[in-house]
């Protein structure tokens, strides 16, 4: 008989090993899924994980894309991970991302077509503020009334989507766009364009911000009292309260951070790679970032790696669509499975497997 025995402390080796194990398991089960879809499994796995980086023909295009996709994922996931560590479940990052994009883009478009160098920084501020404000709604409701932040933050995603549809058709619509929905394109508005810093590197300001956020979160969590308070609140809420940590403060801090980073990510995306506000410019990064946060073990450095890996599956998935005709949805499923296997293998981190009969004491 197999039984589980709780470890006195989470195993460090397993903490590092489970993401690798989960990726391998996902590859195996994903391969079976691809085979069931009638596609060559080994080739599909190779196209997803290897070809975006090393294919002689496509790699030149897809390598920069890696940073473009990883940037927002890392930025959002870093913000989410702080909350998840404290047991605050902000799952509405997608909404905060949209609101950040709307506010930031609105700020920029209001100054069209001036050329001040201050416009782009102002847009970033507006974007972060927009995301922050959107995240403050569940925060205030949780602190004031004890309302469940999971449901509120998620409901606000749908509200944000409705707002996005509205502004791209009305308020922010391109006046020279022949009546098509969608805002002006930031590529034709140099002062507000989040252009690549080095040509063809994929490195734009959002990627820089993501790296800064990783370092910042690392310092916060390991060196700063607020980071310690966040971890304490998650691991021992009662102990945290006895030692004078205000739960309200932690809620505001975590949700605010998550919102601001998601909002900034939205702004960087809309003014750079996406180029304009459209009804569906958001591509679910807010939800994928949840997987990134867990895959990175809620640790800043882990999230950096997990974000790059998840970006790889996005790009590899597109490549596999192109080369094998693999359905786009299978990549979505692939990413979901990754989270599932990660949570499943996580049991080894906290528990030890014991074989043999239960001893009666």
């Amino acid at each position, binding site marked *: 008989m197999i039984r589980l025995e709780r470890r006195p402390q989470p195993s460090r080796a397993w903490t590092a090993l489970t993401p690798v194990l989960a990726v391998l398991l996902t590859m195996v089960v994903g391969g079976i899924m691809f085979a069931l879809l009638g596609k060559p499994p080994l080739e599909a796995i190779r196209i997803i994980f290897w070809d975006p980086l090393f294919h002689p023909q496509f790699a030149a295009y897809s390598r920069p894309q890696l940073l473009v996709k990883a940037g927002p994922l890392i930025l959002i996931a870093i913000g989410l991970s702080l909350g998840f560590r404290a047991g605050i479940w902000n799952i509405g990052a997608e909404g905060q991302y949209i609101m950040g994009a709307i506010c930031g883009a609105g700020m920029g478009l209001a100054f069209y077509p001036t050329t001040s160098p201050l416009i782009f920084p102002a847009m970033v501020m507006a974007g972060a503020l927009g995301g922050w404000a959107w995240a403050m709604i569940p925060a205030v409701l949780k602190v004031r009334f004890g*309302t469940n932040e*999971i*449901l509120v933050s*998620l*409901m606000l995603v749908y*509200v944000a989507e409705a707002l996005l549809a509205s502004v791209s058709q009305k308020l922010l619509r391109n006046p020279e766009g022949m009546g098509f929905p969608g805002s002006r394109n930031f590529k034709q508005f140099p002062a507000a364009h989040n252009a690549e810093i080095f040509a063809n590197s994929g490195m734009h300001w959002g990627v820089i911000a993501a790296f800064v956020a990783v370092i910042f979160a690392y310092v916060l969590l390991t060196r700063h009292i607020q980071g310690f308070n966040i971890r304490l609140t998650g691991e021992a809420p009662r102990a945290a309260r006895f030692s004078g940590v205000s739960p309200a403060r932690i809620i505001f801090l975590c949700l605010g951070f998550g919102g601001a980073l998601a909002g900034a990510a939205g702004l960087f995306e809309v003014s750079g790679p996406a180029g304009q506000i459209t009804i569906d410019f958001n591509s679910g990064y807010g939800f994928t970032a949840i997987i990134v946060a867990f895959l990175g073990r809620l640790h800043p450095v882990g999230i950096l790696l997990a974000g790059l890996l998840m970006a790889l599956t996005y790009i590899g998935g597109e490549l596999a669509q192109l080369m094998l005709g693999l359905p786009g949805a299978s990549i979505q499923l692939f990413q979901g499975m990754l989270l599932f296997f990660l949570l*499943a293998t996580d049991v080894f981190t906290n528990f030890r497997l014991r074989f043999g009969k239960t001893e009666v004491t």
Partner: protein
Amino acid sequence: MDLSSINPILLIASIMISATPILLAAIGEMVVEKAGVLNLGVEGMMITGAVVGFATAVSTGSPTLGFAAAALASAVLSLSFGVLTQMLLSNQVATGLGLTLVGLGLSALIGKPYEGMKSPTMSKLDIPILGDIPVLGPMLFSHDPMVYFSLFLVLAVWGFLKFTRAGLILRAVGESHDAAHALGYKVIRIRMMAIFFGGACAGLGGAYLSLVRVPQWTEGMTAGAGWIALAIVVFASWRAERILIGAYLFGGVTVLQLNLQAAGARVPVEILSMSPYLITILVLVIISARGAHGAPASLGRPFHASR
């Protein structure tokens, strides 16, 4: 705006239709939560039910088979959540989210070939005498069998939890799993059964969306219905009869805003289309501000029998 274009008889009838999917999902989730498990994957199970039900009904021509297949598929999917949270002791919130993401991906993958198809319609139940009552007949007694099944299910769950021994054990497991374990009840087995039931209900709710309410398959068609079902469980303070009220209230809001949009109300369309979500938030706030929650004491806590 022309309010007279809204026919009250059709309005009530369509409220019943639009409330049914949420009602089914919410009553299932309530049983799960009563057993002390927080399954946030309702949205994922619903949409899986929607696509499996639709695909089965289209290929067999029988909506009844569609519903059965949907219930089975979602229940099996929910077992993956059960294995992870109950046997491998993973975090319930994270696993529920994972279940939603998996369900959304899976449904998009299965549903691709079925986009744009029409499902076979479910015949309406002709209740002989009641259906002929002038106003009430078309309002209440001329729906498809699933509407009445969902009402029956609420009654059955209410009775099960209140009057049966098994219901008492289920509630005990949800209130204090350690005490239930000490009394010799199989906590994990009971929770797995509850999760299975919740999955089946969510699947039925999803299939009702794709087979009756819409009736078509489009990607992401549940549009948060699973999350609203979760909110309704909170709204209902974990009581079956209030689940009914909650679901019909939300059904009412949804239908009313659609009717107002069609009638050309002077309220902007985007405000109307976000109203179900805003009202969900509002209701959650009111309920939580009142303080008394009535949540099962062991809700969301992992159970591990160390000896």
